């Protein structure tokens, strides 16, 4: 433990290390909402941090997806066909449908600038849920809520288009 005097020497402006930035990003996602911090940390230990160059694909439309992602830094464009659907930035969470099934990706994700993205693979989430059924239930409930909310939003936008 640090002595009170040493705290004076800690630099409050120092940038956070990538691990704590990743942990924080995941804790703020709807997937890990209301999940205790130690459990979150255990799950985030299993995520994979990957770096992308501008123009590099994270995944392509139609490919089998097995992971959800959180953007740690940089910008990611989501495209379906030739249309740009969204532009995502740090802290944004996407690709969560792949945490439930093998269905092909409904859109492509491309790095617009140099980006760092943290991935949670479905098989690792399944292992985590098997080892911690209590926390797993809460995570899966959050996932279900998230997917239902997206479904409602999709239905509403379809109704407006009509």
């Amino acid at each position: 433990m640090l002595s009170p005097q040493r705290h004076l020497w800690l630099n409050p402006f120092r940038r956070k290390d990538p691990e704590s930035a990743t942990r924080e990003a995941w804790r703020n996602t709807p997937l890990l909402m209301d999940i205790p911090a130690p459990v979150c940390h255990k799950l985030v230990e299993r995520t994979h941090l990957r770096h992308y160059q501008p123009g590099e694909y994270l995944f392509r439309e139609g490919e089998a997806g097995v992971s959800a992602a959180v953007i740690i830094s940089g910008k990611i464009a989501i495209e379906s066909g030739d249309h740009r659907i969204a532009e995502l930035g740090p802290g944004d969470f996407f690709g969560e449908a792949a945490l439930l099934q093998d269905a092909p990706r409904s859109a492509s994700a491309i790095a617009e600038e140099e980006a760092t993205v943290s991935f949670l693979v479905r098989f690792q989430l399944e292992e985590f849920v098997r080892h911690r059924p209590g926390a797993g239930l809460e995570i899966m409930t959050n996932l279900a809520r998230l997917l239902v909310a997206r479904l409602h939003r999709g239905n509403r936008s379809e109704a407006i288009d009509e």
Partner: protein
Amino acid sequence: MKLWPVRMLTGAIIALAIGYLLQPIWIAALLCVLFYLLLEPLVSTLQAAGARKDLAIAIALLPPLVGLVYGAMHLIDSARDYLPQLGQDLEKLQLGISKTLAEIDNHLAIVMDVRLSLAEQVAALELDLRGAARAERLLASTSWLANLLLNLALVPPLAWFLLRDYRSWRDRALSLLPNSQFELGWLMYHRVCARLQAYLRGLVLQALILSAITAIGFQIIGLPSPVLLGVLTGVAGLVPYLGPLLAMLAPVLMMVAGPGLDPGTLMEIVLVLAVGFGFDNAVVIPFLLAGSVNLHPAVAMLAVVIAGHVGGITGMVLVIPLLGMLRIISETTWRGLQSSG
């Protein structure tokens, strides 16, 4: 030019190189993989119930390790007691074979009026089983036993580390994949593992069920060492087509070397094996192994014969599971790479 054939070839070469390097400890490696496949669900269940990972592994590993240590001690004791009288027993076995063949000859001569002179023909082959007990062969057997014991001693620590660290090793290995192959790599790994685990667990269960049925049968008909004979039958059952014939060897030789083999006992042994293998073919294989490998019968027979020539009984037992694993890995990898374009 597509890169995936090159990658598959590289993967195959790396796998072969690792296999070659692991050659001296293949028994330990095989047992560890089997322990992992069988015990990993138990470790997960214990962890889900709140046990710490190390404690869960210890609880799961303890019973099979106690069994393994007991088996090794038994093996050492048996070898120490048995080696000095091996020569006498082999002589007895040779006499027993000659006597049984003479009896069969007489029986055929009386019933069918045919005289094959089997005993004389076998004697003409100069089959000298006592040669197996010569000093250099005994020395080779002792070195084989020492290697086996070394392999068995390696099992507990290797199994422990495999159960504890396998996932982190896997995660590190898969994180080496390039960005474009990251998700595909995980998907293919998962599919290969799911099929392999189902197949290997099915094989182990198949061997256990066949061992149990035949051990009970041998106990009922009063053969000596029914459990050992049951285990040997379970292992022989892994060899397709030739399994029932291989399974007959041990009990028949044991009876020939011991109290003698009469037609009635031979029929009882055949009946026990028929019940065991009948249940295996009618119930166990369709429910546990159906559709998991489906090797063509011609390929399977050819592989068994070649493996028998190269690696003896061990090769015959291992070749089909290994071919099955190879087929699952190559099929799944092929499909995954083709679907990725």
